């Protein structure tokens, strides 16, 4: 939480010497509060002032990067409690847990699942971002062997090393220190030893405590030991506790600038039943978990969870859009069909996907409707016959095709008559309502 001008003023020299370029210290303080000036401009600012103001300027939830290279993931650095207040910035990191007792075949299958987890949704590539190696055996050598299996099998994927035993973590991190892993976890019992490893290896460190008071104490202790990149686990495992505890953490950090809890949260919604696990994980996605460790990552489950994450993390002010254009789908030729849709990413990608499925090469005219879906744009008066006619006429599409037939979405069938009037010489054909009707529709014509 930012400081007010008056609060900042209290920490300035109050000499009104003007060296900062402002008439008074108070005027300068106001500029600082509005983030229109930097404290550097005051040569006489005390060390204390720099410290206090520096801390206040730091984001309320520290941003932390796990992993290295192009698959490193950033987490934390959020500034609001509700997405409509601004937006959620760094999408939840999904990790799959591999127990060291699963070494060999079972681990290999999960590693493979992570590597093939990528799906393309509305133009974004979504995937399982991390692997958590879990010390189940208590045997450092066994743990290290699975870490090695992960490092070799899924190079680049971010790693979480999970054990309460510093010796086990040492054995694991020796194999992946260059990957900036996340260590899970420091507890009241092992804090010194874990902090030492995290500092030495420049790794981030998760804190595990039973409840928020214990977590606060542990956070202050580990921070005092010199580790800055922390992640929090207050021990919530049931959905109710997740909502409550994560909300308190987020609120304390954002509304009270309570530093000990100003870090990303890690959740373990693991359940024996996979649908139950998906439900608990969904609560984490919506309610402030920055990292979620799952027991299993079946494709259907990740499709649902990654889609939810994408929904929750889109910018509420700006629908995802694609550029207005005449797109070629497949090897479209002069006689290939021409269809029109809006530039809402979701509409475009769904329609494009179905046209691709049909294997009928086509032209897809995408009209700028400020990112509204077909029906929404129509209801808002932005997908009207005159606008469509103007767009088609000015698009130059006539140079690419040797026919004059335009296929419109079934939901706006009502436009066809007026469109034929506004586009003289054109034939308007009403397509199916849902895009999933397109393959049979297009094949039947071809």
């Amino acid at each position, binding site marked *: 939480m930012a400081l007010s001008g008056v609060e900042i003023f209290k920490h300035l020299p109050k000499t009104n010497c003007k060296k900062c370029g402002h008439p008074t210290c108070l005027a300068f303080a106001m500029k600082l509060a509005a983030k229109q000036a930097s404290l550097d401009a005051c040569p006489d600012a005390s060390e204390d002032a720099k410290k206090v103001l520096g801390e206040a300027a730091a984001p309320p939830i520290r941003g932390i990067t796990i992993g290295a290279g192009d698959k490193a993931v950033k987490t934390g650095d959020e500034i609001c409690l*509700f*997405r*409509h207040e601004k937006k959620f910035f760094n999408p939840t990191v999904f990790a799959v847990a591999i127990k060291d007792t699963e070494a060999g075949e079972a681990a290999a299958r999960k590693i493979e699942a992570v590597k093939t987890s990528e*799906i393309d*949704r509305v133009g974004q590539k979504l995937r399982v971002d991390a692997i958590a190696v879990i010390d189940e055996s208590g045997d450092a050598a066994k743990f290290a062997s699975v870490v090695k299996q992960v490092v070799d099998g899924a190079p680049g994927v971010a790693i979480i090393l999970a054990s309460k035993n510093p010796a086990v973590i040492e054995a694991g991190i020796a194999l992946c220190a260059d990957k900036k892993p996340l260590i899970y976890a420091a507890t009241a019992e092992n804090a010194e030893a874990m902090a030492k490893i995290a500092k030495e290896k420049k790794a981030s460190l998760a804190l595990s405590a039973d409840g*928020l*008071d214990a977590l*606060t104490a542990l956070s*202050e202790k580990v921070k005092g030991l010199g580790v800055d990149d922390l992640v929090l686990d207050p021990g919530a495992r*049931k*959905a*109710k*506790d997740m*909502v*409550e505890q994560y*909300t*308190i953490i987020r*609120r*304390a950090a954002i*509304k*009270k600038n*309570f*530093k*000990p*809890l100003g870090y990303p949260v890690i959740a373990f919604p693991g359940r024996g039943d*996979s*649908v*139950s696990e*998906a*439900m*608990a994980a*969904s*609560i984490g996605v*919506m*309610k402030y978990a920055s990292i979620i460790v799952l027991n299993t990552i*079946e*494709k*259907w*489950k*990740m*499709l*649902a*969870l990654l*889609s*939810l994450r*994408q*929904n*929750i993390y*889109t910018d*509420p002010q700006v629908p995802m859009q694609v550029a207005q254009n005449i797109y070629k789908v497949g090897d479209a030729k002069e006689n290939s069909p021409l269809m029109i849709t809006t530039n809402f990413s*979701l509409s475009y990608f*769904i329609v494009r996907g179905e046209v691709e*499925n049909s294997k009928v090469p086509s032209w897809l005219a995408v009209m700028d409707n400020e990112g509204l*879906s077909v029906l929404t744009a129509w209801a808002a008066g932005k997908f009207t016959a005159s606008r469509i006619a103007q767009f088609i006429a000015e698009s130059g599409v006539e140079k690419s095709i040797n026919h004059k037939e335009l296929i419109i979405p079934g939901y706006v069938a009502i436009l066809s008559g007026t469109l034929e009037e506004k586009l003289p010489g054109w034939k308007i054909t009403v397509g199916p309502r*849902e*895009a*999933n009707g397109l393959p049979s529709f297009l094949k039947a014509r071809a």
Partner: protein
Amino acid sequence: MALVIPKETYSGKIYNVQLGAGAKAVTIGGASALPFLAFEGAFPNKPAVALEIMDIAPDDWPETVKKAVGGAGASPAKWAKFCQDNGADMVALRLMGTHPDQQNKSAEEAAKVAAEVAAAVDIPLIILGSGHAEKDTQVLQAAAAATRGKNCAIGKAVEENYKTVAAAAMANDHKLIAMSQLDVNLAKQLNILLTQMGFAKERIIMDPMSSALGYGLEYTYSVIERIRQAALLQNDPMMQTPVMCDIGANVWKVKEVMAPDADVPEWGGLEDRALAWEVITASGMLTAGADMLIMRHPGAAGKIKELIAELMG
């Protein structure tokens, strides 16, 4: 530094709305804090889960959900009983057959089905029109009269027909579902219009319009969050009606619940995928603040009831 739990001070509270009659009556609403934050408010009632049935066979529902309904879909009364036996808190009868593009069934036929269904179960009944604003006025009027005394939720009253639909609910002592289109102000506006015509605000259930996971869910999610904040933090009496979400109708038409495994191997198995789609959509609406859900797949509804129990603690 000790942690002082940062609590919100809520000045408002959601109305308690009772549906049904007798031992199986269900009350929704009553929350005095944002969803599931029991450390700073009370949640006297858990969110209710209704299973949807129709006056016609579910022929155009996707295979996965049709299979889950099984033979029960052939008769509305049997289907309703099936929902009750499968743990539904309520039954939602959608009179889809009355839609002019469907079977264009008459209001009298619809009323007969509504009465049969009401007689077949003792859990509360939600009666929905086909969504054809004009036809719904006659259909809902007849259905409301035929189920008088059952304390049903009748809907949906929309901008175009709210006067008639509300009058039907009022005349027969039912509650009302009022649907607006994904906009906080429109939702409030409809509640104001209803109260201005004399419909008690404590008898309204607000439907802010649902959308499916991956298909605009985030819009509904944020609209509900904002409605709840206005109700509790700003103490806006026009926003304090419970919220309901029509989940199944939105979910069971998207590609993710229909595409066979072979077409989209990267999406995983259809059965699990389809069920998860309804479950995660429902979880989203609950987390935002929904007090009542209408779902289609009994298995998905069962799972969501499990989640509700876990959230209520």
